[in-house]
């Protein structure tokens, strides 16, 4: 079945450092979404990417969708302690209209 892997599994950075998580799907995706889950919380939608090679920015966050629509990345510039949480990518495969397959997640820890 479809698998969506993320690396790294865990990253610990000092506040102000940059952070990147990479998402790789075993199958081509029709679109990809990113979610953030704070410790003890629920997934919260961040963004959706649809087009091949698409890049979107939200303040310090930059999201990319690969040309082959099988990978994606999230880059955070100058992390803050409020960025702490687990970041999940979630993809939809063409033909499976409603099912979102979540990635394995990257847990980000930020310390002062």
């Amino acid at each position, binding site marked *: *079945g479809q698998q969506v892997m993320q690396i790294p599994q865990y990253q610990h950075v000092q506040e102000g450092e940059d952070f990147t998580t990479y998402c790789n799907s075993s199958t081509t995706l*029709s*679109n990809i*979404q990113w*979610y953030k*889950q704070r410790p003890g*919380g*629920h*997934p*919260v*939608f961040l963004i*959706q990417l*649809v087009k091949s090679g698409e890049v979107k920015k939200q303040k310090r966050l930059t999201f990319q969708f690969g040309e082959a629509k099988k990978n994606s990345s999230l880059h955070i510039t100058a992390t803050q302690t409020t960025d702490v949480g687990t970041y*999940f990518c*979630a993809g*939809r495969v063409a033909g*499976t*209209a*409603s*099912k*979102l*397959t*979540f*990635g*394995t*997640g990257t847990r980000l820890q930020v310390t002062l």
Partner: protein
Amino acid sequence: EPEVTQTPSHQVTQMGQEVILRCVPISNHLYFYWYRQILGQKVEFLVSFYNNEISEKSEIFDDQFSVERPDGSNFTLKIRSTKLEDSAMYFCATSGQGTNTEAFFGQGTRLTVV
């Protein structure tokens, strides 16, 4: 801001018992989903529901599981005979205009099977 509401927040049940998890979707949303997350692991898709029927389901969603929208508002997940490995956080999610839009997640129900 509209939100998805789930009850109860925590349920402890004995193995073999039936449980019903409840979700109140955002009012104008048409697509409903259940996901589960075993502690410390990724979020796993269980089932999607549209127009009063299941659209898709995963291999996890076996005959022990069922979903329904009994009164046009609540969306429920029933586990007929719980097993220890059913212990997890269960999230309800809903989306509005179609499956190509963001999913809004509820706060989750933590199910503990003892």
